[in-house]
């Protein structure tokens, strides 16, 4: 059962449970990418915990041979927080869907981010409720017809990145289920980041929202319609690597290098570590091309570090060394 050394392979993280997602579901690729990332994070298997809510995506922990908790709809951020605070040495991962995280669990989601507890959140965004068979979710495109919106939705959707940054998120990345390698790299960085890391994964639900991301992920268009940003590198993309992003006034604009006098030097350099999130917000909101990669990664104290520090401080200063000291403190009197 247990592996003595840290020389794990992806297979060591695969549990004995049969995987039950629909054939062709994007979740399979994500599972593979996560299992590949695990040997790279340098953590012992017994120190890794996967916590999920409810949804197709939330079945995920059953398929990982680590500790796992498949909980109730929307509450995984709080459960994961309890796990992390109980044992800060653990590497805690939360698996959630767009409904789980942003509808029923919206409150917990933003408060987890606000507190900055070191938990890696993988948000499987398929823009639909999969498990309950195809109702619209908080990320479903405006006007889309679904089982519960036969005339088209009239709710404005959330852009998860905007929500994360609006809640003062320190780490936000976007990945796709079609780029497993890119996802694995992001996961390793998410684990390294101290504080809450949110990774939005554009995931194809082949049954209820098929190909909703194909404008970004289809082979023939992905290079032109996706830009993968990396810290310190110019924001260049396109099939010929000739397109780039520049700032025009308060807006991002796509330009072509070599046209209208634009040179490579004009292209924005990505600074994921910048404290001010204005540009990160613009990148998260950009529709075409869609931005993938680590959009923001700003280092600051995590909640559990602050908690530890505080506990050490009170330990040093407290007159009570045991509960008996406390019970006998204050005004007492002796009856003979």
């Amino acid at each position, binding site marked *: *059962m*247990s592996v003595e050394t840290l020389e794990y392979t992806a297979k060591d993280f695969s*549990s004995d*449970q049969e995987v039950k997602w629909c054939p062709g579901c994007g979740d399979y690729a994500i599972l593979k990418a996560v299992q590949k990332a695990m040997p790279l994070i340098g953590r*012992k*298997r*017994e*120190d*890794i*915990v996967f*916590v*999920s809510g*409810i949804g197709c995506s939330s079945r995920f*922990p*059953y398929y*990982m*041979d*680590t*500790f*796992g*908790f*498949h*909980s*109730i709809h929307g*509450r995984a*951020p*709080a*459960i*994961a*927080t*309890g*796990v*992390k*605070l*109980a*044992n800060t*040495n*653990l590497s805690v991962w939360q698996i959630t869907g767009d409904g789980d995280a942003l509808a029923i669990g919206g*409150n*917990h989601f933003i*408060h987890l981010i606000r507190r900055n507890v070191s938990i890696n959140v993988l948000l499987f965004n398929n823009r639909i409720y999969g498990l309950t068979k195809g109702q619209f979710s908080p990320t479903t495109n405006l006007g889309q017809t679904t089982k519960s919106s036969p005339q088209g939705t009239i709710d404005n959707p959330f852009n998860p990145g905007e929500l994360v940054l609006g809640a003062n998120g320190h780490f936000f990345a976007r990945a796709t289920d079609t780029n497993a390698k890119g996802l694995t790299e992001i996961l390793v960085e998410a684990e390294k980041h101290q504080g809450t890391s949110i990774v939005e994964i554009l995931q194809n639900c082949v049954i209820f929202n098929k190909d909703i991301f194909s404008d970004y992920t289809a082979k023939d268009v992905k290079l032109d319609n996706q830009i993968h940003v990396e810290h310190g590198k110019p924001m260049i993309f396109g099939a010929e690597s000739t397109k780039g992003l520049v700032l025009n006034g308060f807006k991002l604009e796509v330009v072509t290098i070599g046209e209208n006098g634009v040179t490579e030097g004009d292209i924005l350099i990505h600074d994921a570590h910048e404290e001010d999130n204005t540009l990160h917000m613009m990148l998260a909101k950009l529709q075409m091309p869609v931005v993938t990669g680590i959009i923001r990664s700003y280092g600051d104290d995590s909640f559990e570090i602050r*908690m530890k520090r*505080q*506990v050490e401080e*009170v*330990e040093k200063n*407290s007159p*009570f060394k*045991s*509960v*008996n000291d*406390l*019970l*006998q403190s204050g*005004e*007492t*009197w*002796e*009856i*003979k």
Partner: protein
Amino acid sequence: METTAIKEVDKVVIKFAGDSGDGMQLTGTQFTGTSALLGNDIATFPDYPAEIRAPQGTVAGVSGFQVHIGQAHIHTPGDNPDVLVAMNAAALKANLRDVAKGKTIIIDTDNFKRKDWEKAGFEEDPLESGVLREYHVIEAPMTSLTKTALEGLGLDNKSIVRSKNMFALGMVYWMFSRPLEYTERFLKGKFGKKPEILAGNIKALKAGFNYADTIEAFSSASAVLPADMEPGLYKNVMGNEATAWGFLAAAEKSGKDLFLGSYPITPATDILQELAKHRHFGAKVFQAEDEIAGITSAIGAAFAGDLAITTTSGPGLALKGEALGLAVMTELPLVVVDVQRGGPSTGLPTKTEQSDLMQALYGRNGESPVVVVAAKSPADCFSMAYRAAKIALEHMTPVVLLTDGYVANGSQPWKILKTEDLEEIKPHEADKSMQNWQPYERDTATLARYWAYPGQAGYEHRIGGLEKEDVTGNVSYTPENHEKMTYVREEKVQRIANYIPELEVDGAQEGDLLVVSWGGTYGSLLTSINQCARDNKKVGLAHFNYIKPLPKNTAEVFNKFKKILVAELNQGQLVRYLRGELPQFTYQQFNKTQGLPFRVVELTHAINKTLEEK
């Protein structure tokens, strides 16, 4: 009325009442502390407005503190005050109906002007109209006397007026021959850095004391001798404080870290605040974004190996329902404290009631058994919090501990326990010797599964809210398995009856009537039962600390009496549960839902009526 001469009495109930800003809670706790040090037995009950800033001078804004001191054992804060201190007309209006004719009322006449009594809702001047004719009234212009006494100290008017509660306290200290040292010490601690304020308060305290001496402000009852208490070291504890300490002691004894996930709600917030002071004991206190996050963070901590608790009141318990079911399904140790208040909905946040019993027992989807226990007095909160934690850790189950606003805010002297004298707590953990541990393998006696948690190599496993296969804990939809697991979850809780104390009876051990009660009403009922015993009535009291499962000898006890009367502060919740669990008995019920505790007189009346009925 004439003043009566000093006489020693065995107990006296004093109520300090004034505007929320008048410092009545402080005045009451000072009187309590001083009396405790003199060796009196004590019970207290604060009574404050739900609105933090209710309009000044109105009945809605009245804050009160009732203290019962005695030489004999005391079980309640008392039905009716022997002495009422009314700092303004509204305080008189709010409390007058509770004061029996012939008792003493001390009045700050400075706050009984026309506008004051009109605001309080009197139609005529109460000092003139004759409503006080049959009371022993002591009129003292406390505000102006305080002003005169504090002249020249360089204090502003506001600070001077604020000190009038010390003047009132000084008067009451004189009436009951209490020393001033305890309060002087307290004031020095509190205002050590503000010498003028300190001097003002002490001066007001002494001025009140001397004024009472000058006017010979005797009450109908005066000195109270020390009670005949068991030898030992004592301190005064409030229920919520005792609850918090019980958990700290359980954590230390079990070798676990304590994790509290909680969201503030009256009257449970004090537990959160008390534990937040004690992080040095490894107590992880997490103020969550709502009650659901409070319990789910605790469930996460339990999964990861902590002694996990969550504290709330009725509305919060409603929000925690789904998650509590998750703890039932995952069979994790968890204690949920519900400090009950009047309901439904927001109800009466600052008033007491016992109306969450059904919610605790049944308020979840599915067949969802949890252990339900209740504390019977402020000091008992310590023991029941400790026991609740012990049951959760040893039997791998969620436990709901019910207290209420009355015991939570009430206080009483507590003979300090030493942690070495507390029962051991042995968490039901998987141990290294177990071959091939499986998540839902069980102890054959208790049916508790063996706890293993992250960080332990070789125990990697997945659990969750979906039905579990017996032994392996894998997801299972098999019909027979679901039925078996449903049975096992209930049976595991029922078997706890083998590990809890048997039901004890106060008063007559057999006879005409058994009064049955649970939770915070114990003090009132015991007082009433003791009275019955003095009148040679064959009445016993069976008070339940453990409700689910019921103590093993419950039916045996019920069999010894001709009639059973179940008394509760609700419309009959324990009685309905008993009718289901032990249908062979006939139950009568006595219920009250006024947001107030039982009065001894009304209990005695109900008991006598039941005895007389054919």
